């Protein structure tokens, strides 16, 4: 078979795939009679109402000198790890707003960080294509820096996101600019499985974010620059369980819904979306109508414990609190006093859901908590 022949067949196959994909899209549209908001309204549910004092900034964590790119809470204690362009990871005590560790990184261009389930170690990754693990209990070296305890190298592009598998201290999933996600064994430093890539079906562009299902840690989703999100089963590395189309821009962030059956995405097209992993349907679009053409990108999202609220950070410094049921904005943290002065790049909810931490390009992190006497929702 000659090369030209192969090429022709490849072109034909690509066309077929695209045609099928289009048909699938049409079919889905025809089946989609309502979305969550429409249904909720028809059931005359009312939106959550938020007083301005219900969510207030109660701590400002100052200490970074560069843009904050990522943060993560410990599952147990109230500690936060944050990664910034000043080349440092800082571990904060969220209660006292003090630093407990400041880790100088060998590569300053860090994009992501994560706390291990036990809170004993942190992981980070960035442009050096390596996921570095630091054990917080290890002794400092002579310069007062924390030595790296493990290097997970193997990615051929930057490490855009990493997350520990819940309750497994030695398992970690990273996503990378080389279009793949990898499940690592930290003790050996080797890859357990590779999701996507050249010969496998998966993402066709840089993967920007992963989120592991909290109720079934074998499943995780990834969001990518190819405007799709993929659902993966860690036991089946060869292909994605399902690919979710819908976004019109890079999917910057994905996050599992607390019940584990849905997940949310945030994208450069300025929308957040909610997908169902069982049906593959898009359930809802969260989109704030904007007059001007410059649509702010969604940089990061998080769900409240009940899932009723969706926190979304935008590139223009806004941080909307969406009512997931009615798809309305109940609050904009960016317009509150004391809000960040620059883009909100990352946000995360504490394990018990009592506080939200936002990190921004103004080099600060802020902790927001419910100031009123409302029960946590």
């Amino acid at each position, binding site marked *: 078979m000659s090369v030209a022949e192969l090429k022709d067949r490849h072109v034909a196959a690509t066309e077929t795939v695209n045609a099928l994909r289009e048909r699938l899209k049409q079919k889905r549209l025809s089946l989609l009679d309502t979305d969550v908001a429409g249904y909720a309204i028809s059931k005359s549910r009312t939106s959550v109402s938020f*007083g*301005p*004092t219900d969510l*207030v*900034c*109660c*701590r*400002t*964590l*100052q*200490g970074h*000198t560069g843009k904050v790119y990522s943060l993560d809470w410990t599952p147990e204690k*109230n500690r936060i790890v944050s990664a910034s*362009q000043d080349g440092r990871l800082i571990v*904060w*005590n*969220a*209660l*006292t*707003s*003090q*630093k*407990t*560790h*400041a880790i*100088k990184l060998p*590569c300053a*261009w860090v*994009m992501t960080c994560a706390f291990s389930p036990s809170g004993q170690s942190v992981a980070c990754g960035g*442009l*050096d*294509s*390596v996921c570095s693990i630091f054990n917080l209990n290890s002794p400092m070296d002579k*310069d*007062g820096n924390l030595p790296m305890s493990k290097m997970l*190298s193997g990615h*051929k*592009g*930057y490490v855009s996101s990493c997350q520990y598998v819940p309750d497994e201290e030695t398992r970690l999933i990273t996503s990378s*600019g080389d279009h793949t996600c990898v499940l690592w064994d930290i003790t050996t430093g080797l890859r357990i499985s590779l999701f996507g890539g050249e010969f496998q079906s998966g993402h066709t*562009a*840089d993967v*920007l974010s992963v989120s592991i299902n909290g109720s079934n840690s074998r499943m995780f989703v990834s969001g990518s*620059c190819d405007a799709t999100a993929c659902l993966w089963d860690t036991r089946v590395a060869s292909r994605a369980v399902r690919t979710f189309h819908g976004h019109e821009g*890079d999917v910057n962030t994905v996050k599992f819904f607390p019940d584990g059956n849905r997940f949310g995405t945030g994208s*450069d097209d300025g929308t957040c979306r909610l997908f169902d992993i069982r049906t593959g349907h898009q359930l809802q679009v969260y989109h704030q109508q904007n007059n001007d053409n410059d649509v702010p990108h969604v940089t990061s999202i998080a769900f409240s414990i009940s899932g009723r609220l969706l926190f979304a950070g935008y590139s223009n410094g806004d941080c909307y609190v969406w009512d997931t049921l009615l798809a309305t904005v109940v609050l904009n943290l960016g*317009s*509150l*006093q*004391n809000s960040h002065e620059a883009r909100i790049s990352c946000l995360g909810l504490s394990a*018990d*859901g*009592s*506080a939200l931490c936002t990190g921004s390009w103004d080099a600060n992190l802020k*902790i927001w*908590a*419910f*100031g009123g006497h409302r029960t*946590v929702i």
Partner: protein
Amino acid sequence: MPPFETSDADYGAEFSFAVEYSGPPVTYDLPCAVPIKVERIPVAAAVAQVSLSDKLSLPVVQPLLAPDPRGKKFSKELKTLGSDSSTLVSPTSVIAFDRNNGRDCKELELVSEATVSPTSVIAFEEGNTSNRCYFRSDELSSSRALEFSNGQYASGELCDVANSSREFGFSSISHEHSPELLGGAGISSTIEFSDSFDKSLTSSLASRVSCSQKESLDTNNDLSQADWVSNESVSSFDYPSSQVSSMKVVDGNNESKCELIRTPVVTFRDFESVDAFDEEYTQDASEKRMPQVKGKKGSCYRCFMGNRFSEKEVCIVCDAKYCSNCVLRAMGSMPEGRKCVTCIGFPIDESKRGNLGKCSRMLKRLLNDLEVRQIMRTEKLCDANQLPPEYICVNAQPLSHEELIILQTCANPPEKLKPGKYWYDKVSGLWGKEGQKPSKIISPHLNVGGPIKPDASNGNTQVFINGREITKVELRMLQLSGVQCAGNPHFWLHDDGSYQEEGQKNTRGYLWGKAGTKLVCALLSLPVPSKFSNSCGEQGSNIVNRTVPDYLQQRILQKLLLVGYNGSGTSTIFKQAKILYNEVPFSAEERENIKLKIQSNVYGYLGILLEGREIFEEEELIDLKKKHCSRIIDPSGNTGNNDDKTIYSVGPRLKVFSDWLLKTMVSGNLETIFPAATREYAPLVEELWNDPAIQATYNRRSELEMLPTVASYFLERAITVLRTDYEPSNLDILNAEGVTSLNGLACVDFSFPQSAPDADIDAADQHDSLLRYQLIRVHARGLGENCKWLEMFEDVGMVIFCVALSDYDQFSVDGNGSITNKMVQSRQLFEFIVNHSTFDQMDFLLILNKFDLFEEKIERVPLTQCDWFHDFHPVLGRHHSNSNSNSINNSPSLGHLASHYIAVKFKRLYSSLTGRKLYVSLVKGLEPDTVDAALKYAREILKWDEERANFSLSEYSIYSTEVSSSQ
């Protein structure tokens, strides 16, 4: 959510609000502090439009009367401004004070204070007003307040009351947006509050009277002070950003204190109740920041509890003292150590420099070990807490940043440097306080401060050392150590201790040579050179290798971003820089990795060769067969095995090896099985390489597209390279592929070595040696349309874009699957990077790399091969015949012409995109000199960039027109 319950009880949070008063100057009699009747309360005039959203309603809170046992009345009005009309503002308990220090008849109304009982639960709604305008108004108010209090100082009487009161209103408004308040309950409603007290001043403003007085406070006063504190802690929250000098922070309220100082009649209690600010305020604008003492002497500055015996933490800037309950609130996350939130960014109080990094017991109790350690670390090391260079005068000249760095990083620095005036004898390294004998011998020949003065140490002995009249003690020492000092000689003392008389050549002796001298020096408490004082030669190398503290590093690090299309030689330049400027370019581990990489590369090249061999063999066989068939038709259909032999055939053993190698390569795990393989197969490789079949294939290597050009470099050395004891040479490393691109990003820190002998001629050169550069090489892969991480490089000083000249006839498949010229792809990447918003206004240096290959190639392949260069018509016609003779130097070679042409192409492209000048440098990646020259060129551009700011605008415009015309 227990941890974040913002209960007031926790911190005793107090809130105060005030509203801007910017109405017309008050026309009625100002604060009639007669016992207040509710009906007579002056109604606040128009609320300023600027700072409040239009939806505000202004509920008026009735003032409460607080009778004063001493017959003084405090009259205050509180006006709360509900921020949102939709929601009700209900401060459930508001305490107001009447203050009337009615000694003098002058009274003024200050619209500045509001108090809320800390225990009351208040539900305020937030206004949607932006913080911005508050900041502005705050700045305004503070600066105006400054003027105002100046005036006060002079007159001692406050006359422009209305004016001042307005300002106070301003400042208090700005307080409302405080993290503290929000932390507590998210309040933004404002309460206007007017305070009346008389104003009369004394000149003894500066004294901090509060310290000398002991008085108990009644609770009412406590509350009012607490309120002030919260006001204050908020007010300067935004100061760090607004870089006002610390003097401006003086809030207008400090005159209230002053007034009290003057009138001895005023009881302590009054004093404390009114005293809001303890700004040490002197008219020469001393730069000291002082806290606002409101409580009684010795109490916490925030909650006013406790006495001076209770344990407190002190702010290293303003000396405010906080009790253990308040310290975390007042100091926040302590990004610069123990400073009030409001003091962050300000230089520390120099008298507290000694305490930096020394932790108090209280912090240790409040926080865990790790946290305390972090605080102390940042306190010592953060930039804002470093010694300000202008505080150090050396030879009557304040130091610059660079000079201070030189002084502190020299081999033998003056220890525990405190602000002050020093003299420094550059020749001998003697160092002392101005007007005093030498205290230390530091590294000599440092380029700091001015020339030494004869009277630097205030000596009167008429004996001079290095142009400084020495003190009596020194003279005594000289005499005791046997130096002839008769006749008031002038000595030259060198750093090695040798001395000579001025104007004479011969050395008279070595001062430190004798053991006795040191003893004498010890007796007279004069310094002796430390053991570490080395000759300056060693010192030079020290500068490069010394580890510099972080804060210095950030200040002096210049980042260069190196980008280029695949195969443009960025990695070669990167490796070259490493080899050029690093004493140990590659660590042992790195070398080991490089070795493995090179070896596996060679296996890869061999694999490609073997693959080629199979193809060639097949082709040959087909040819043979054809010939065969044409000659004899075999009836059985079996061709004789003997005929299968071609020059590309190999023996069975090698066949097995080559099959195995090809199989591993196809399965893609050559690298994983590789290290073990070397040992096993090294002899086989030798055999293989020497095999005529391989050699024959190698000779046809130009037909193997997969084989990179560098492969021949390594293949010819294959046998040595594949030995287990192989040590890669620098040239091998430079040639090796994939050594740096294992990671997406590589960076190397370096500094340009001083050109050794004439280094100390130019003062600027010495500063350069401190400058460190970081070359960051990023991989072109992933620099796609929506590259998200390029914005991380917004802090680089310059982008170095690398283009391989020899690419002009190369083609590759781009993202869309179409075949494009590599030079055009380079251009597309260049355009993308130049247009990227991150690199707006950044300088670009274009490196035209692989000039050596290009020169060679241009003779064979016309440049017009690339569409972009279609109009390249070199005027070589008449010179061309001459160029064969090689003797004419003034006619540029075709290679040079072509490279200049390409440079101009890129320059035009760049200036059409940005309107600025593109710097271009011609480089041969494998030759260290050209890379060195290019990087030094980059340094010059960066330097020029810094200096350009010093030029006046007109000069710069002349420069820029020159540039554009020269293009």
